[in-house]
């Protein structure tokens, strides 16, 4: 993991009990995780009365450093020893290292989910709805008497957050073909998971 000097400086300040007493440290740590993971976190996350005595510039620097480090660690799936080593290099005492690692461990899953969801992908099918109809006549053709299906796939686009739908009609034979192919795919999937 490559981390900038700015991050290192921020952590060194965080390590210093003179700048951050243990209460302030806990609050800042929580604030860092919260602003990354809580969808409803507001900008006032650093506005706690127990942090008011710290210079706002220092506060922001340390908050940014912590957030950056957390994201990098999450991205590379850092383990406890990697975290400890880096924090030791930044002059964290044992207790603060433990605290950081525990907080990281508690939030690891949410962090990885968040990071995993960032990125481009193909439009994603989320659901399907279908309609069965019995066609009787059109203005061009009477006495048709055949069943037909209308299938709608609900699709989600990751980048545009739009929800287009794909609708198509098919006869019974075509639907059987479609279902057959999807079943082949799912059987293949099952076999692949057993390898």
């Amino acid at each position: 993991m490559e981390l900038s000097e700015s991050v290192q400086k921020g952590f060194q300040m965080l390590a210093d009990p003179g700048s951050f007493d243990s209460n302030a440290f806990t609050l800042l740590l929580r604030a860092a995780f919260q602003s990354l993971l809580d969808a409803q976190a507001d900008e006032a996350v650093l506005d706690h009365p127990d942090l008011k005595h710290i210079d706002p510039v220092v506060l922001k620097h340390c908050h940014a450093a912590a957030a950056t480090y957390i994201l990098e660690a999450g991205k590379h799936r850092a383990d406890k020893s990697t975290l400890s080593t880096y924090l030791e290099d930044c002059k964290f005492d044992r207790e603060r290292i433990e605290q950081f690692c525990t907080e990281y461990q508690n939030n690891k899953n949410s962090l990885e989910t968040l990071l995993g969801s960032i990125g481009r992908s193909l439009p994603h099918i989320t659901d399907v709805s279908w309609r069965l109809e019995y066609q009787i006549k059109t203005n061009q053709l009477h006495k048709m008497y055949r069943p037909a299906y209308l299938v709608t796939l609900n699709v989600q686009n990751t980048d545009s957050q739009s929800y287009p739908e794909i609708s198509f009609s098919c006869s019974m034979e075509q639907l059987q073909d479609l279902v057959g192919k999807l079943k082949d795919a799912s059987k293949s999937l099952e076999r692949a998971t057993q390898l």
Partner: protein
Amino acid sequence: MLLELSEEHKEHLAFLPQVDSAVVAEFGRIAVEFLRRGANPKIYEGAARKLNVSSDTVQHGVEGLTYLLTESSKLMISELDFQDSVFVLGFSEELNKLLLQLYLDNRKEIRTILSELAPSLPSYHNLEWRLDVQLASRSLRQQIKPAVTIKLHLSQNGDHNTKVLQTDPATLLHLVQQLEQALEEMKTNHCRRVVRNIK
């Protein structure tokens, strides 16, 4: 159900008894060909010269025949009804039989052509699939994220287009389950009763 033929229509068809049955059969073939591929006026000229009549007459004769065949096919009228409808034209027994045969021979194909005129949605053509596993991305390393990539081929009015989509294993199973239920629905008593009774 009897076909109702307008006066104009009857006039156009009045040309048919004046030529021999081979010609009527040929006109029948031309009429169906026009339904398949569209009209070709040059054919009228050639026929008109050979029969020594105006090309308008030939055109009306063929068009009258086309209309007779398409209306009968559209309504799916029975043999008896067809014969009765044509009877009012006062044609010979032989010509009536020829027309009936033309109708019966071409009905299925004409109905297929007519069905293409209905308003249509894109319809399913084919599906291709592929299993993928995402191993890493810019924002997260060391992943194992299975996905199924699907290429759906649809066609509408003769145009093909394809959509490339993706889904996860859980949704795939859900899709299969839902669509199997859709197929099962046709076998239920309710649907069977409807199919039996609406004719």
